[in-house]
């Protein structure tokens, strides 16, 4: 039976939703007179779903038919689910019409493997050609490369897309073998390497690439994961690694036993740690070590690092360098810029920081202003940590209670 377009949309959006990447940032402005669409460097969120995630791209699968049988994937071959496929033209038309109404920034196109890797990559390429050549569309397009497809096809896709990615899915080859028998890390990284080489031949700036890792389906520690991300960033292979808390969608003997809740806090801490790698000049082994291979769930990774390295603190706000300021828990990049700007005109005290609306909730334990330390908490790791996790409540003396206690001692009534 032919499915109508709404049903197709329902099925193919539903099957793409576990892909985390949705960002459309990092592309230079590229509009052309008389054409449609432009990208925006910071990316623009167009709406937010009921789970609170940003939607900036039409994120769908071209098809959820698949010849693979990966254990964690909802679209695996052996699953008995509704299947559908868009034609390249259908999908291009929807993209253009959504774009004109300002629903989206562009397209995020992924796909199950239909018939063969090459066939799938070809259909994706056709969609891109209609969008770029026929509709003169300059908006954002992110394509999930199909591992194992012909390098010539990958080259053509790379030439038309703003960003490409290929999901590593699991942090080690062993885990891949267990859960995704058709994939190896080598096979997944291959198209990324090729894409980078090809885009570098044309331009000095390689095409933006990203990947995704599933967290909590296999036994790797945060250290294994952050080490992997850090290597990928250092080799400039990737611009962004996404982490996705494992959500059970299938029953499989190799998957972890039923967990009640996806490890969302762990995912959150990994993103925070990832941020430290990319924007705060931390190395992964400062954040996790053999002794503590997993991130502390009680406090964020920056605070956790500071607590283990109290010898650098408290830092004098008026003297610390930019790099040092960036290491103060609770103070972010914007806060650092505010401090640097304000410092040029005067020496700052605690009230000045408050006036600049710099959050001191955590920072106050780690700084001095003009030599003064403002927190009353003793300067020890455990005390500070306790104060951050559960700030002491203000004691309110209730006179009546006090009186009773007092009378107890004195014997007066």
């Amino acid at each position: 039976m032919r499915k109508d377009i709404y049903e197709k949309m329902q099925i193919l959006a539903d099957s793409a939703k576990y892909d985390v990447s949705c960002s459309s940032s990092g592309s230079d402005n590229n509009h052309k007179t008389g054409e449609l669409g432009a990208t925006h460097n910071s990316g623009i969120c167009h709406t937010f779903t009921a789970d609170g995630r940003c939607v900036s791209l039409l994120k769908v699968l071209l098809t959820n038919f698949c010849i693979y049988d990966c254990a964690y994937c909802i679209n695996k071959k052996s699953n008995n689910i509704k299947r559908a496929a868009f034609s390249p033209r259908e999908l291009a038309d929807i993209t253009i019409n959504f774009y004109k109404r300002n629903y989206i920034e562009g397209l995020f196109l992924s796909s199950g493997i239909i018939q063969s890797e090459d066939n799938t990559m070809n259909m994706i390429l056709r969609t891109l050609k209609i969008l770029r050549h026929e509709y003169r569309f300059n908006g954002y397009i992110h394509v999930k490369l199909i591992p194992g497809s012909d390098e010539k096809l990958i080259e053509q896709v790379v030439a038309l897309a703003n960003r490409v990615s290929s999901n590593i899915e699991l942090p080690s080859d062993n885990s891949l073998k267990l859960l995704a028998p058709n994939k190896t890390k080598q096979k997944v990284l291959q198209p990324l390497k090729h894409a980078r080489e090809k885009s570098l031949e044309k331009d000095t700036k390689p095409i933006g690439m990203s990947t995704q890792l599933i967290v909590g389906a296999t036994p790797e520690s945060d250290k294994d994961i952050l080490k992997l991300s850090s290597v990928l960033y250092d080799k400039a292979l990737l611009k962004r690694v996404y982490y996705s808390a494992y959500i059970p969608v299938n029953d499989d003997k190799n998957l972890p036993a039923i967990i009640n809740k996806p490890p969302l806090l762990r995912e959150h801490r990994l993103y925070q740690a990832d941020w430290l790698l990319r924007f705060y000049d931390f190395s992964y082994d400062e954040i996790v070590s053999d002794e503590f291979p997993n991130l502390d769930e009680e406090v964020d990774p920056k605070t956790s690092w500071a607590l283990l390295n109290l010898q650098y603190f408290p830092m004098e706000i008026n003297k610390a360098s930019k790099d040092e300021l960036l290491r103060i828990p609770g103070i972010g990049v914007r806060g650092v810029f505010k401090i640097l700007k304000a410092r040029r005109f005067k020496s700052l005290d605690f009230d000045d920081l408050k006036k600049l609306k710099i959050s001191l909730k955590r920072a106050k334990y780690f700084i001095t202003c003009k030599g003064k330390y403002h927190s009353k908490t003793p300067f020890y790791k455990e005390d500070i940590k306790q104060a951050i996790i559960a700030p002491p409540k203000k004691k309110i003396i209730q006179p009546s209670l006090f009186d009773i206690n007092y009378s107890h001692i004195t014997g007066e009534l």
Partner: protein
Amino acid sequence: MILVYDKTFEGFLTLVYDVYYEKLQPKKILTKFPNTLLLEDILEIKTDEEKSLKVLEAMKKKFPKKCFELILNIFMCDTKEFELNLLRYIILGFRDSNELFNINQKEVFFLQNLEKELFRHVHKMTGFARFEELKDGTLYAKIETKFNIVYFLGKHFFKRLNNQNYIIHDINRKLAFIKNSDFLGVQSIASFEEPKLSQNEQKFKKLWTTFFEAVAIQTRENKKCQQNFVPLLYRIYMTEFL
């Protein structure tokens, strides 16, 4: 002393002129005469083109470009009381233009933050504005916004919808940014008739809503988080929330 001006940019510049040369000490700046009787002196500023041009030229000459633009941008934040801060900022700049970058000065900090708030608002609306396709293919968006931002939005969409005609209509301020073959810019809209939509409009609205609902992950539902990102205020014309 309370000053009253007519809410126009020229009126405000005249006010700056009078305060500066007559050494006035305003405690409040209003745009309408107060209804209640107050003990303070009230002085009405009469908009004067000559005075306002003088102030404008002096600012252009003396102020760094960034600060001059900030002054123009602040005027778009028309629902906020910015006048007293802006007045002090301009006078500060005439005394020493370096001080315009000193964020320890409370008016500098206030105005820089207000400008940021303006641009944050513009940025949100670049994502949350929704166009509908009219019978003749023109794209039409209705907006109701905190600040006066049609100009900024118009400029933004000029890059994206370069081969399209479009209208961004600020319902409350009765303004619209219009782009068609004869006109490009902001116009005031006295009255308007609800326009006729194209044949395809319903189909794409329904497709969009279908997509929007399908991408949410039920096991991670978090309506509070969603509402932090898209406050109800912004949802008035957003197709997926209708």
